C-alpha cells in the first residue's frame, strides 16, 4: 500500500511521478521489476507496452527507478520546485485551518 499523504499534504496534490520518454524506452521493464509501488503497468498486447498507471503511488522525491534505466528514458519533476510547492500547500492549510 502506498501513502496517501506526504508531509501532511494529500498525495494527489503533489506532482511527482516518472515520465517515460518513448523515443528512448526499449521496454526492458527493469523499472517495473524494481518499483514495489506498482507505479508502472505493462501492456503486453498494446503498441505502447509500458505506462505510468499509478502516478500517486510514486514516493515523493524517489527517483530510484531511473537508476535502473539503461536507455535513460525516465525523468522526474524538479525537486526544488516540488519542495516549494509542498511548503506552500502546508502554509495554505495552516492558514485555513
Amino acid at each position, binding site marked *: *500500500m502506498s*501513502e496517501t499523504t*506526504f*508531509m501532511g499534504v494529500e498525495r494527489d496534490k503533489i506532482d511527482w511521478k516518472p515520465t517515460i520518454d518513448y523515443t528512448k524506452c526499449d521496454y*526492458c521493464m*527493469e523499472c517495473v521489476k*524494481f518499483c*514495489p509501488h506498482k507505479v508502472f503497468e505493462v501492456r503486453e498486447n498494446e503498441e505502447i507496452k509500458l505506462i505510468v498507471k499509478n502516478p500517486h503511488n510514486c*514516493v*515523493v*522525491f*524517489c*527517483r*530510484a527507478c*531511473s*537508476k*535502473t*534505466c*539503461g*536507455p*535513460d528514458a525516465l525523468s522526474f519533476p524538479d*525537486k*526544488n520546485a*516540488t*519542495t516549494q510547492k*509542498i*511548503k506552500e500547500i*502546508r502554509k495554505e492549510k495552516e492558514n485555513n485551518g
Partner: protein
Amino acid sequence: MVENYAILPCNGLDKSAGIISRELALKLCENAQNEIICPVFYRVAEAKYNKIANEHPLLVIDGCLTRCASKIAMEKNLKISKKLTITEEAKNHNIELKSNLRLLENENALIEILLNGLNNAEDKVILFSDETKILYKFEYVTFQKDKFIFRLPKNPEIYFNENDCWAYVSGNRARIGVTDFVQQSLSDILYFTPPDIGIKIDQFGEFGEIESSKSVIELISPVSGKVISINETLIQKPELINENPYELGWIAELELTDFESDKELLIGFDEYFEIMKKKAEDKNG
C-alpha cells in the same frame, strides 16, 4: 593512478556505451599493469578470472545504468573498489553519445578524458579534521517484523524525512544517513558512492548512492547544506551501513545553510517510527 586493477567492463556490443567501456578497458590494460576480465567468458568459466578478481582491486566499468558489469561483480561476490558508468560520465562532460557502434570523435574524446582522469587519480585519500568527528551512542527503540529488526534512535536532536533518512543536528552541523528501513530493504550493501566534499545539497537533494545486488538507490537529504566530510570508511566497508546506519554507518556531515526552513519538512522520532512500522508491515505483509 589506476594500476594493478582487475578491470571488469561492460562489453555490450550493440550500444555505443558498451563499445566505449570495452575500449577504455583495453587502453587501461595497454598502458599500465592492469588485467581485464571478460564479462562474457566470466559468466561461463569463472575459474580463469577468480584469481585475478580476488588478488587485485576491482574497477568496474558499466556502459549504462542497466549496470550489467556491476551485477556480474555482485553475483560473483566481488568487492568493487572503483567504478564508473559511461553514460553518466558522458553527461558530466557534456558529450553526446549517439547510436553509432564505431568509435568516432565524441566517443574517442570521452575515452581520452576518462583515461586521463583515471591515470591521474591518486588513490583517494580524504582528509577531514577531527573536530568534525562527533562521537556518540544512541538509545534505540526497536520493532520486529518477521525476522527483520528495525531500530530507530530516540533523540530530540535527530530528525527524519519521509524518505527514510535521518539528520543528527549539532549546532550548525548535521551528520546524515539512512534508517534501518533502507538497509533492511536493500539487504547486503555492496557499494557506496559518496557525495563530493564541498558541494551544496538542497533539502531532498541527493547525497550519494548505495547499491546492493537488489538495487541502487539515491539518498535523499533531510537537510540543506554544504558537505564538509564523508564517512570514508564506507568506501571500503559499505556493509557498516547494514550493521548500524546511525553510528558507524553514517554517510556525510553537512554545514547547515537553512535549518529553520528545513525543519518545516522534517519529523521527529514518534512520527517517523509509525511511518517506518507501516512501511515495514506493507513491505513484508
